[in-house]
């Protein structure tokens, strides 16, 4: 499998009053057309890793890497113009909460069509047709209505489908899903995940699935990176999760409730200071 994305020694630094603070400290991985999960608790640097891949590290933060290559393109030296062609066109990101990540004063249809507007030429009618087809692909039953709706008129699950439609309409090669279901009801989560999974598999995209939910990631991805305090502490196949070596991963595994036996008191994790070194 040829690598779609190569990341070597990614570091993200934010200046603080106490001097620079490194929130991602040397993350390396490669991604083919597969589903890679990144798991970690909040503050572990998983979301910042995702954003850095799109060149969207929020200022004044800075991202550096020894290698950062997407399909042969060196992202570290990409011009703003190259970035704009890549973003939305070849790589894209589904964000956490559709309530905040959709523009409240623009209809869903316009927001989906806007993604097409800056990637290749097409007429308005073509754009609309593609947007409608995409809304159908995310299993929205009444695409015509949703196309004309404003974000606040949609439920969370619908909004997230619209978000997925907006981010996939340009048929990118790489999709970063940053906690795409964390803001949704549990019942809707599964539906949205199925839709996402089907689209990613059908179109042969690479997927980076960022989540704090180890069980979800394990059932959904091929490979899992476990992050702790800005570092990858363990990388394993999703199917071999129970063979985890690192005590942090083991701790996470132990947190999962088991239906058949009553675990009391609930296990707590004792964090070893050496994990963060």
């Amino acid at each position, binding site marked *: 499998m040829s690598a779609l994305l190569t990341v070597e020694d990614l570091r993200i630094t934010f200046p603080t009053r106490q001097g620079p603070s490194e929130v991602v400290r040397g993350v390396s991985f490669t991604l083919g057309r597969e589903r890679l999960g990144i798991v970690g608790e909040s503050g572990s640097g998983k979301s910042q890793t995702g*954003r850095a891949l*799109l060149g*969207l590290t929020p200022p004044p933060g800075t991202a550096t890497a020894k290698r950062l290559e997407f399909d042969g393109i060196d992202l570290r030296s990409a011009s703003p113009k190259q*970035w*704009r*062609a*890549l*973003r*939305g*066109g070849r790589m*894209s*990101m589904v*964000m*956490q*909460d559709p309530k*905040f*990540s*959709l*523009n*409240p*004063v*623009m209809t869903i249809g316009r927001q989906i069509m*806007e*993604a097409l507007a*800056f*990637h290749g030429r097409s007429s308005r009618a073509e754009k609309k047709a593609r947007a409608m087809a995409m809304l159908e692909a995310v299993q929205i*039953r*009444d695409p015509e*209505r*949703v196309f*004309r*709706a*404003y974000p*606040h*008129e*949609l*439920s*969370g*699950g*619908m*909004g997230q489908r619209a*978000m997925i439609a*907006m*981010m996939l309409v340009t048929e990118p090669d790489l999709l970063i899903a940053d906690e795409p279901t964390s803001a949704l009801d549990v019942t809707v989560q599964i539906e949205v995940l199925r839709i996402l999974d089907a689209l990613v598999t059908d179109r042969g995209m690479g997927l980076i699935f960022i989540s704090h939910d180890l069980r979800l990631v394990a059932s959904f991805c091929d490979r899992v990176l476990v992050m702790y305090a800005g570092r990858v502490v363990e990388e394993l196949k999703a199917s071999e999760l129970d063979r985890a070596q690192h005590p942090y991963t083991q701790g996470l595994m132990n947190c999962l409730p088991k239906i058949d036996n009553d675990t009391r008191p609930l296990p707590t994790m004792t964090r070893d200071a050496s994990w963060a070194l």
Partner: protein
Amino acid sequence: MSGATKTGGRSRALPFAWKAVKLLASVALTFLGLLFVTFLIGRVVPVDPVLSVVGDRASQAVYDRVYIELGLDKPLIQQFWIYLQKVFTGDFGDSFMTKRPILDDIMRVFPATLELATFGVILGTILGVPLGVLAAVKQGRLADQVVRVVGLIGYSAPIFWLGLLGLLIFYAKLGWVAGPGRIDISYEYDITPATGLLLIDSAMQGKWAAFGNIFSHIILPASLLGYFSMAYISRMTRSFMLNELAQEYVIAARVKGVPEWRIIWVHALRNAAVPLVTVIALSYAGLLEGSVLTETVFAWPGLGQYLTNSLQNADMNAVLGGTLVIGVVFVGLNLLSDLLYTLLDPRVRRRG
């Protein structure tokens, strides 16, 4: 399953009409309250309306006759009712000073203020909004600092001082603009009053020499008011834009590969425009209520000057009439900004 509410063409227009009706009802109520307050002010102030009419040397008999003529012997609530009837027939009473109906006086002075304030707020908006956006985009950098300092001077320097300074430099020293007043005497009778807005009247009648003269009179006070409102508008635009640019949907637009200019001017500004409408409307209302100081410095025959004169001469009918006009302007502009708000923000629109 369906998460969306109806978005048919019908349901889009209907809540808007309904909202307009509700707004009009609330405007009517506000207006009534306004009338009541101005009426009470007229009764509370220590100015004897009879004395203003008869003078302080009139005999008691004359005084009493006028007292009854003015209806001051009737109960307060009845007086208010009479006042209401009069106001609705456009009768605000006569000015003690000019002996003319108040309405005529106000129709004469208000266009001067309207013209100046409108010119000012247009300047303030077309300068203030882009500067505010620029400051927000370049936050903390040189452009931002310059815009903020220029704005700070705008609303901390006294306007009469800036006015005098402006007159000294651009009129007295450089001679670039005409001096105080709306128009030179030599042109004054050239123009047949139609709208009362001299720029528009002269342009419609094709009197371009007069137009030029009027323009050179209005440009300095209008720039001053424009600067004043620009200071406020740019500051508010900056803060609204900073708020919008930090939103998640801005990142989502970047992820889509939308160019930065479009993110700023379409995505963020479109959202910032919603509260901005109110800011601009209020700033306009502030200018319209007669920028008393500016009108005094520039000898501008507008509402502010008229009210100041009336107040100094204890001409209560004129003061009340003028207060009412200002109140109506405020209510009207609030109504307008509410309606615009509804048009700009789909979330408000649907709530009805």
